């Protein structure tokens, strides 16, 4: 694929990241695969497929693209849009079973929140192997005979991903803001667009500096009656944005007291919109907009048989298995992002969600409805 094409897919894909972007489903050859070549599966989000193919350059294998409604694997799986049915369908209807003589399919680990390995095996005869979280680790995973290192199973939020999320928010918001301001306040158009990109970059690139202060509960910090991340952080960012605008207006000689209230309001709205789902835009926090961030994964120790599926599918490395036949524990439970993968996969039904009100969401409900109905069901 030419450099130009690669750049186009990546740039457009990044700028429009928050929208679904479907691409064709089915089976695709990578390199020169034969009947013993590995079979990998991913969702039909264009950017993902593009990156998986790129990561697989030089590898001979088959890539199955399942229908995830044009949404990335993790969001689709936790939201009930990449399900057993989609995986069963591509395994049965793409003709891949005629191309290989084995029945092993490698699924991205993040699909574990929505796809049940047991059901896939029972209905298709294919055995599911949970691959790494990131496509870039696939070649190492394949050459290590399908063994994952701990790092391969973990999500992180490195600078390149943060840059991507910052652009993904800044682009559509600056587009809408530009259209509105063009009609109502044309002279503020370019300063506002710069402000949006600058603020978005600042919020996401500075993430490691304040991430430890973002909390998952609902604690108040100091005199601010909000969570940090849902008030204090925004106030801080708003302050910086205002300073920037003040700097610009004084330097450009356009400072007037009359325009000040309008700038105050505009910057306030922009900061609020940009950080509306800050935590949900990261893979290391639960979305702040959904009720299900209050859920807690609970272990029923009488049911746990120490099988350890939870440990192998947890993208946040929350589980510890003391030894074979022992029960698991979750010492770093605070890291949990409530994706539900462990609950969905546990063959002993030993894990479930509990709400602070005491309400329990049993494994069957999580498997059937994923997370998209849970917010509603809790109310």
């Amino acid at each position: 694929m030419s450099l130009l094409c690669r750049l186009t897919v990546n740039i457009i894909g990044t700028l429009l990241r928050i929208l679904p972007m479907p691409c064709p489903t089915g089976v695709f050859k990578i390199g020169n695969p034969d009947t013993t070549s590995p079979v990998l599966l991913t969702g039909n989000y264009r950017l993902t497929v593009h990156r998986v193919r790129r990561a697989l350059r030089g590898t001979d294998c088959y890539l199955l693209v399942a229908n995830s409604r044009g949404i990335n694997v993790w969001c689709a799986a936790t939201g009930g849009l990449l399900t057993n049915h989609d995986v069963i369908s591509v395994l049965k209807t793409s003709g891949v079973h005629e191309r290989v003589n084995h029945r092993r399919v490698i699924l991205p680990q993040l699909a574990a929140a929505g796809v049940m390995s047991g059901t896939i095996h029972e209905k298709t005869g294919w055995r599911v192997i949970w691959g790494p979280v990131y496509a870039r680790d696939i070649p190492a995973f394949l050459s290590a005979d399908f063994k994952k290192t701990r790092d391969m199973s973990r999500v992180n939020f490195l600078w390149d991903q943060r840059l991507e999320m910052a652009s993904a928010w800044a682009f559509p918001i600056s587009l809408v803001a530009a259209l509105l301001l063009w009609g109502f306040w044309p002279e503020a158009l370019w300063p506002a667009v710069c402000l949006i990109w600058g603020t978005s970059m600042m919020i996401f690139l500075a993430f490691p500096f304040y991430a430890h202060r973002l909390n998952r509960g609902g604690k108040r910090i100091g005199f601010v009656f909000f969570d940090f991340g849902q008030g204090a952080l925004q106030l801080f960012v708003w302050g910086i944005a205002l300073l920037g605008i003040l700097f610009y207006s004084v330097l450009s000689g356009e400072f007037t007291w009359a325009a000040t209230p309008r700038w105050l309001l505009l910057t306030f709205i922009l900061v609020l919109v940009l950080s509306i789902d800050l935590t949900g835009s990261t893979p290391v926090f639960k979305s702040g907009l959904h009720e299900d961030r209050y859920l807690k994964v609970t272990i029923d120790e009488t049911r746990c048989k120490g099988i350890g599926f939870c440990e192998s599918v947890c993208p946040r490395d929350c589980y510890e298995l003391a030894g074979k036949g022992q029960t698991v524990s979750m010492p770093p439970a605070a890291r949990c992002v409530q994706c539900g993968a462990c609950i969905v996969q546990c063959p002993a039904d030993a894990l479930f969600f509990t709400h602070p009100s005491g309400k329990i969401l049993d494994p069957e409900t999580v498997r059937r409805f994923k997370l998209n109905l849970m917010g509603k069901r809790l109310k």
Partner: protein
Amino acid sequence: MKILESAPNRYDLGIRLLTWGRLDAAYDRLASHIGEGQEVLDMGCGTGALTLRAARRGAKVKGIDINPQMLEIARTRIREEKLHGQVALHERGVAELDGEASALYSVVMSGLCLSELSTSEQTFTLGQVYRILKPGGLLLIADEVQPFSLLKRGAHHLMRFPLIILTYLLTQTTTRAVKGIEERIVDAGFLIEGARRSNLESFVELIAVKPQEERP
């Protein structure tokens, strides 16, 4: 932002908008081919629009769909009309039709289901439907299709654009028009008994029959 909310409770409204409200009339006409006591399969039964119509006519209906939330709505409706004795609903996709017995059904229905499938899924499905239908059995289809003429195709896209946006906002789903549906049905071995296209040729009601004698 994570698009987690799928919206079955708004699905009916969204789809009605997208099909200009002609869906109900089309479903009524298709269901009129169903007789009492017949074994009927509804592929992609969704919230139960076709399933209910068939059950009201006294057929024994099996409805399959991959969306558990839509099935919940269908279940409630069927209970409300006290038709649960005749209807069985399963969370199952068309890919699992290979688990059905051969020559079991008199009628297989599909309302806005084929347009949700990829080309290879459609081929697989039509092949399986041919197998599970009795000789002389009917395949009833109502779906969005691509208009034949280029001009109408253009007009169709223009008119659909605002509707696609609206439907997308309501349901986060959209439908894709099926290409060359008649040909593919004939390729699968069926004979087309009746076809009715909308003025813009973009919506089709099809009645196809599995011939009494096996294809050579």
